[in-house]
Each structure stands twice: as structure tokens, then as C-alpha cells.
């Protein structure tokens, strides 16, 4: 005896809900058993396809964005730090620089800081060998940065970017570091993009001119990094900068800070504003100081990666569609029989959707394991070397989760549609194998 309550005891909505729940339960049983009894190799192949689809979705945009993030990371590490102070829009320099520096030095959150004085000058090389005064001079317009040698090294590790020669010595006068893009031998790969001087190496003598004032420097070292602020720069001690450029007020052009906990730079910015530095300088977090074009490029790369990933999703959904379609088509007769004995089509559809969900879930899980367990640590340890940055793989978990949801949703649809196509066929035709 079937111990069921009479359907009349329930409202139509409840009856419909109960039927849906029964269909769900039976669909899960049918789907689970189909997965369980399916060919192992076929299942592995489908999961493999789904895993690569997931990787395509995550890794392509992750690498593209990683190029920019790698570049940002390099700028943060080598140049700007966590907090950047620059002149207010209505000022040429940071006002009250010595007071600000004294104050900054007392904050325990700040582990390093450096004040920079920048201007442009003309760098001339090979002038002592020049016999013909009508011949073209070997000159280049350069950016000159005056720094506290020790503080700058503590802040950015400038010493570690010396590719030839040595770092500046605080006890010596008349020494200069030159970025590689100002030296022909290093910059020739870029054609004529940069103004360069030739034949420069440590020990060479160069002349730096600002207006009518010139000073001779000995090249102490040549610096190179992933950041143009180093490659397209010359560094001299700040006291010599002030003398050469007549900056006697000691007001800097940039003050950069590195914090104990970089993530708290917004709080630190607020602390500095609360301390009353706002009227003297524009205070920005690293993120705020990034040029807009960099953010635009990052967004564009993200979009590009998503676009490429979307093609992967379309391919995967078509693959799933075909797999489920063939699967359902080959079981068309059984589907007909199930309908014939009274199984609702929803239950049968759920069985196929469950299969699609299983493939998407396992494929994505494996893809996520590979991404977070191997690829990200690998690219962090072995970044892709690009001229402007060390490319890493960027895959924020929340973004990955959203992309997984998209992949999962589309896979479910790709699993549902073919099942729907087959189950809507005439029951008797399906049972008899008629078209």
C-alpha cells in the first residue's frame, strides 16, 4: 500500500513544491548514478577540459593584470613607497620640509623615508676629448634628483640597482649615479627614444649644467631597475643638488615613506593630515599616487583577459552542451521509459544538470588548487621578466569566485538545454526510438 496523503490535502502550491522536491531527490539519484557509472576516462577528460577552461578564465587575465600589478609593485618598492607627499597644486615645493621630516622620523609606523629634490639639467660627456668646437656636443637633457644617500638607500634599496660601479659615498663630493637610459650603450635597444651620452662608465667625468651653473661629476655607478624613475634619472647628494640648483630653502619636491604595515597607509595618511601637514603638502597613499593611465591600462588588461576568458567559457559551454547532448541522446530511450513510468521531466533534467555541475565544480576546484597551490607561488618566485615589470599571476580570491560562479552558471545552462531538448520529445517516440 502506498502510504501517501491524499493530494487534495495540500494546496496547489504545496503540491507543486512537493513534486519539485521529489523531482530533485530523484534527479540527484539518477545524476549521481550516471556520474558513478560513467566511463572513468570520459569523466577525467571532461574534468580536464573544465579545469583548463577555469585556468584560461583566471590565468589569462591574471597574467595580463599581473604585468601591471608587477609594475605597480616595483614602483612601490623601488620608488614611491606606501605614502607619497608632493607639492600642493598651488606650490612649487613641499613647504616646511625640515619640520615634516623631523616629525616623520618620530612615527613608529614609518620604517623608512626619503626626501627628494628634483629638477632638470643638461648632462654632458666626452667634453674634455672634444677638439673641434663646431662638432656636436655629447649632451642629454636629464632629470636630476638630489637625495640623502643613506636614507634613499634605506627607503628604496637604490644601492642594489647598481649594475656597474658603486653606490654614492656620503663622505665624498662630486659623485653621480646615472640611470641606464641616459647611456647610449644601454639604451640603444630603444632606438632614439631617449637622449643619451656615449662612452660612460664608472670613473668617467661628466658635466651637469643648470642654466649658467655647471659642475663636474665623476660617474660613481650606473643604475638600472624595472622602474623608469631609476632608469631615467641621475642621483647626486642633496647638498650638491641644492648648491647646483640654488634650492637653499631645503623644501623638497617629494617625500616618500615606507610603513611597517603597508596596508595601513590610508590610516597613516589620515594621521599625517591630523598632524597638520595638509597645508604644506599633498599627501597621498601609494594607490592614490598612481597615474590614471596605469589604472586604465590595468582595467583594460583585466577586460581583455576577461574577454579572452569568455571565449574559453563559450568553448567550455559548447563542449558541455555537446557532451550532455550526446549523453542524453544515447539515453533517449531510457529517458522515454522514465517518463513513461511516470517520472517527471524535471527529475531527468536535474540529473543532467547535476552532471554538468559536477564537471564544472571538480574542474574548477582542480583549477583553483593549481592556481593557488602552484601557479601563483611559482610566478611569485619566478616572475615573467618584462622590460617594465616582473609579471606575476594576480587572482584575487573574490574575483576568482565570481568568475567561478559565471563558469558554473553557464555550465548549468549548457547542461540543462540539451537535457530539455531530449526530455521534451514525445514519450512514446523516445521509447520506440522513433524520430
Amino acid at each position, binding site marked *: 500500500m502506498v502510504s*501517501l496523503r491524499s493530494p487534495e490535502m495540500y494546496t496547489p502550491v504545496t503540491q507543486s513544491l512537493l513534486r519539485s522536491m521529489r523531482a530533485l531527490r530523484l534527479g540527484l539519484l539518477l545524476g549521481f548514478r550516471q556520474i558513478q557509472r560513467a566511463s572513468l576516462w570520459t569523466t577525467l577528460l571532461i574534468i580536464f577540459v573544465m579545469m583548463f577552461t577555469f585556468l584560461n578564465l583566471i590565468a589569462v587575465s591574471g597574467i595580463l593584470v599581473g604585468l601591471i600589478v608587477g609594475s605597480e609593485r616595483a614602483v612601490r618598492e623601488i620608488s614611491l613607497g606606501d605614502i607619497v607627499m608632493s607639492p600642493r597644486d598651488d606650490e612649487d615645493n613641499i613647504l616646511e620640509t625640515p619640520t615634516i621630516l623631523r616629525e616623520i622620523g618620530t612615527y613608529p609606523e614609518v620604517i623608512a623615508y626619503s626626501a627628494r629634490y628634483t629638477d632638470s639639467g643638461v648632462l654632458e660627456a666626452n667634453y674634455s676629448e672634444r677638439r673641434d668646437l663646431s662638432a656636436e656636443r655629447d649632451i642629454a637633457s636629464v632629470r636630476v634628483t638630489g637625495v640623502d644617500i643613506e636614507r634613499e638607500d634605506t627607503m628604496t634599496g637604490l644601492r642594489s640597482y647598481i649594475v656597474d660601479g658603486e653606490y654614492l659615498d656620503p663622505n665624498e663630493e662630486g659623485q653621480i649615479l646615472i640611470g641606464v637610459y641616459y647611456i647610449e650603450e644601454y639604451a640603444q635597444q630603444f632606438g632614439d627614444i631617449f637622449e643619451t651620452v656615449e662612452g660612460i662608465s664608472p670613473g668617467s667625468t661628466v658635466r651637469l649644467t643648470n642654466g649658467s651653473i655647471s659642475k663636474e661629476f665623476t660617474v660613481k655607478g650606473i643604475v638600472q631597475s624595472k622602474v623608469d624613475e631609476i632608469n631615467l634619472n641621475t642621483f647626486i647628494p642633496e647638498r650638491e643638488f641644492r648648491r647646483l640648483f640654488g634650492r637653499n630653502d631645503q623644501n623638497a619636491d617629494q617625500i616618500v615613506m615606507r610603513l611597517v604595515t603597508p596596508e595601513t597607509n590610508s590610516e597613516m595618511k589620515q594621521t599625517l593630515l591630523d598632524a597638520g601637514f595638509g597645508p604644506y603638502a599633498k599627501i597621498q597613499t601609494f594607490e592614490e599616487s598612481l597615474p590614471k593611465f596605469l589604472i586604465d591600462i590595468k582595467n583594460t588588461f583585466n577586460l581583455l583577459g576577461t574577454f579572452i576568458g569568455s571565449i574559453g567559457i563559450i568553448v567550455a559551454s559548447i563542449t558541455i552542451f555537446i557532451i550532455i547532448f550526446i549523453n542524453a541522446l544515447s539515453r533517449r530511450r531510457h529517458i522515454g521509459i522514465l517518463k513513461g513510468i511516470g517520472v517527471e*521531466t524535471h527529475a531527468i533534467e536535474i540529473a543532467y544538470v547535476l552532471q554538468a555541475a559536477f564537471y564544472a565544480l571538480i574542474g574548477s576546484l582542480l583549477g583553483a588548487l593549481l592556481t593557488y597551490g602552484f601557479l601563483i607561488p611559482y610566478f611569485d618566485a619566478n616572475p615573467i621578466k618584462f622590460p617594465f615589470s616582473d609579471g606575476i599571476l594576480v587572482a584575487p580570491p573574490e574575483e576568482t569566485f565570481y568568475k567561478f560562479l559565471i563558469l558554473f552558471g553557464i555550465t548549468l545552462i549548457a547542461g540543462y538545454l540539451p537535457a530539455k531538448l531530449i526530455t521534451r520529445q514525445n514519450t512514446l517516440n523516445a521509447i520506440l526510438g522513433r524520430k
Partner: protein
Amino acid sequence: MLSLGENDMNDTFIITAKNIHRSFTSGDLVTHVLRGIDVSVRTGEFVAIMGKSGAGKSTLMYQLSVLDRPTDGSLRIDGADVLSLSESEQTRFRLNTLGYVFQDYALVPDLSARENVMVPLLMRGMSWEEAKHKSDTAIDDVGLKGKYRNLPSQLSGGEQQRVAIARAIAGSPKIIFADEPTANLDSISGKAIIELLDCLHRNGQTIVMVTHEEEYAAGCDRIIFMEDGLVVREKKQS
């Protein structure tokens, strides 16, 4: 001992089909397979439909078992005008009222014998445990005790057909439709299946069976002979 149905053998008709027509159209060609058939089946009756190949016996059974919709005619089963039901209502009607035994067993290959029998029971809303218990009882009743976990591929043809019968009877349907249930079986297995159906009938089960072997129809209450889409003769048996 089968623990089936409580259907009392009486004179009420559980199936009343009047003027059933079924034709198939392919382009301009219209094939009339059933040409106005009147059939009634009493509660508890065991009816065999016989005829030569192409006579329309299977087509008639598909109409009577609500697997197909006649081109014309009326059909009442267990008091319900089944032709007025929507497709989903017909599905529910089949689930709750009818049981099926197909020629080639029609078991789901991925499910065990027990699960195959459980499918319609779960769809009817039984709990897992209740469906399992009923399924095991039905499998025991058809003589396959202990083969609950076997997949169809691990069973012989005769055993698969027994599972199909277990699936048909587990929900205590009002009528069982059997479409040439012995066609794919050897004579020994075929006889065993017929004996099983006969046993169900003796317990009051209404059965409509299509067969082309007179030997298997011998135990039926009535044999309906068909030819060219028409009922040409009926033979009542004691």
C-alpha cells in the same frame, strides 16, 4: 506469495475505450493504424491482445496505457477521462495508476535492481526507507531475493524482466500493461514470466498484455484478436 493488489474482481470496467482511432501522417501519406476500436477491461481481468505483426496491437496498448494519444475516440481509465488530461497530468496518472512491463525490460542501466524499482516510488513521494523496503519486497516477490544491488548488466534477460515486473507492481498500480514481455526471452524464462503475471492476476491484478504467442495467452481471461487496426474477434476463457 505475491502481496499485491486488493482489486476485487467484479463487473466494473476499469478501462473503457470507445471508437479509438490512431493514424500517422508522413507528408501526404496518412496511415490508419487503429480504425475505430471499442475495448473494455474489467477490474481484475487478465486480457491478452494478439494479432499478426502490423495488426495494431502494440499501438492499441500504447493508447490504453496513456503513452500515446489517439487521433480520435474516448478513453476512461479508473473513472478518469485521461484524454482530457494535460501531458504532465497524464505523467502523474501513469505514475499513480499504471504499471509497465516492456519487451526489452527498459531498466535504467546505471541503477541497481533495487533503485530501478525505487524510481517510481520515490517519484510518488515515498521516503527513501519506505521505498527501499517496498522495492526489496517486490524483488523478493518476483523471486530475485538477494539481488537488490545487482546492476541490470549483472542479471540475465529473465531476471531483468522480473525486475521490470517488480518495478511495475511495487507501487500497487491499478493496471499493469505488458508489451510482449516474453519476446526477448528463451522459452523457460518466458514461461516463468507468464507464470509470474498469472500469479499477479490470481491476486486480483488487472493486466493487459500484448503477445503474439498463443501459448502465453492461454492463461488469460480474455484474448482480443486484432487485424488491420480492428478488433476482429474476442475469446473468453474460463
